[in-house]
């Protein structure tokens, strides 16, 4: 691991100041991705600003929803009674991700900040536009069975591996960030970005901006939620395809529905067109299949991930079936 200096801060302002003024500095939260990337020589900040002691560790009920502090551990969110009651989809998604040990370390903000990545990103002997802009993409035309089928560019076809973020985008979460210029709010769907010509940039944060909280507005879809994650083994693996589905039913009519996918794009992939189609329709297999067809229209295979073109729509239909049947846990 490259050498770096370390500072432990106790206020958000001190953290923001420390990273704003130093281009080679970065925040350290749970470290489950950052430390790993540093060990692999993929990234090498010269200064780590340890934010783990900041008072951003509460889950609170507000007038309009729940507010989760950026440093709440993934385990805490997944097991929290208020989260399970109001946003079971988030709890299910979190429990499908990583391992118990990693979930005890990883924070909400850190989960969002984990890099969109693939094996070529980790392998410093290979070209990767995300790691070394302009060096090319090893995955295009290479081994790409894990890679994107939506929103990829000719510079990068990696996928964002988070399960938590799939649920948060489906639940219309809003991210609060604080930076040298003050505080601002970012709709969750605008937090991560597609690769385009600058795959080295995963999200829309500016230098020095610190995630302080994530707000999730109350909704009517808590009763019927399911997170279906398809992977190479039963647990503790990234998704090949995952689908977060939550809906509310009135006389088997879909009153409201939220749908998002993981493992298919550079960012958590919200399925708004399919949601619009399903709203007001009967909860039937035929309608679920039509929704999946709408989702898949722009999908594009990279070669080895051709199977995702079949797996993805099947997973959407299955997740909706399980959610509608109250697949709630």
């Amino acid at each position, binding site marked *: 691991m490259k050498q770096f200096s370390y500072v432990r801060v106790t206020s958000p302002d001190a953290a923001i100041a420390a990273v704003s003024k130093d281009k080679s500095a970065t925040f350290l939260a749970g470290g489950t991705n950052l430390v790993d990337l540093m060990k692999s020589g993929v990234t090498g900040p010269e200064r780590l600003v*340890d934010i783990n002691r900041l008072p951003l560790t509460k889950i609170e009920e507000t007038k309009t929803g729940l507010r989760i502090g950026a440093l709440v551990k993934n385990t805490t969110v997944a097991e929290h009674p208020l989260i399970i009651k109001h946003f079971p989809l988030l709890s299910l998604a979190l429990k499908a991700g990583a391992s118990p040990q990693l979930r005890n370390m990883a924070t909400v903000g850190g989960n969002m900040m984990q890099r969109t990545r693939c094996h070529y990103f980790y392998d410093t002997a290979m070209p990767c536009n995300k790691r070394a802009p302009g060096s090319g993409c090893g995955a295009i035309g290479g081994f790409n069975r894990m890679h994107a089928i939506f929103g990829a560019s000719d510079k990068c076809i990696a996928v964002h591996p988070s399960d938590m973020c799939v649920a948060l985008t489906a639940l219309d979460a809003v991210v609060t960030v604080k930076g040298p210029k003050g505080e601002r709010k970012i709709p969750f769907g605008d937090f991560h970005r597609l690769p385009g010509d600058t795959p080295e940039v995963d999200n829309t944060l500016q230098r020095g901006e610190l995630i302080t909280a994530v707000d999730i507005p109350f909704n009517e879809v808590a009763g019927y939620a399911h997170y279906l994650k398809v992977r190479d083994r*039963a647990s503790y693996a990234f998704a090949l395809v995952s689908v977060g589905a939550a809906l509310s039913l009135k006389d088997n009519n879909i009153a409201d529905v939220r749908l998002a996918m993981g493992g298919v794009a550079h960012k958590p992939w919200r399925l708004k067109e399919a949601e619009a189609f399903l709203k007001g329709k009967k909860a039937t297999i035929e309608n679920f299949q039509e929704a999946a067809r709408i989702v898949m229209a722009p999908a594009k295979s990279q070669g080895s991930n051709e199977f995702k073109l079949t797996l993805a729509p099947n997973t959407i239909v299955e997740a909706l079936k399980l959610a509608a049947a109250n697949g709630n846990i």
Partner: protein
Amino acid sequence: MDDQLRNEEQTGTSRRSFLKQTSLMTALALAPETVLKAAEKELDEKIAAVIETMPLNVVINGVKQSVRIEPRVTLLDLLRERLQLTGTKKGCDHGQCGACTVHIDGERVNACLTLALTTEGREVTTIEGLADGDNLHPMQEAFLEHDGFQCGYCTPGQIMSAICCIREGHAGTPDEVREYMSGNICRCGAYSNIVDAIMDVKQGGKKI
């Protein structure tokens, strides 16, 4: 802010700046690449010794440890290389195998991805901290009883993880145990016996 200033001092920023200005560094900057490569490792270590070690106070298995370490030292390396607590194993060193599982303030984590400095003031428990003299911890007993291992390399991590699996309330059924032990890989494939050991301890109802 005071805290931050204090920490600024501790990181030795001024020493780093000083070093960058020394003639040694200037000479190195002008040296041919081949010479640099050969010198790289040794140089790295020398700089490490000068630039920055920071104080760390952490309680490990009930014993207060005060050491000075580089920021890049992981908790796993601190345990194994500095404190000779080699019970905690280094498997993948990337958070994928669970061999390095320890408890920090009672919660299981991967020591390989934990920078040691982040544990300031915390309480760490390793496999060495479980037994009471010659009396093994019930989970250790159960692993022996059920042959929960072959080569034994993953075992310390398995046992540390298994204890939390029960404490967290995730050992209701064998299926639940399998899910909540998924962060611990066993290449020998002792999984079924590990699950048996955990269910046995759970059903025994002893406080663990």
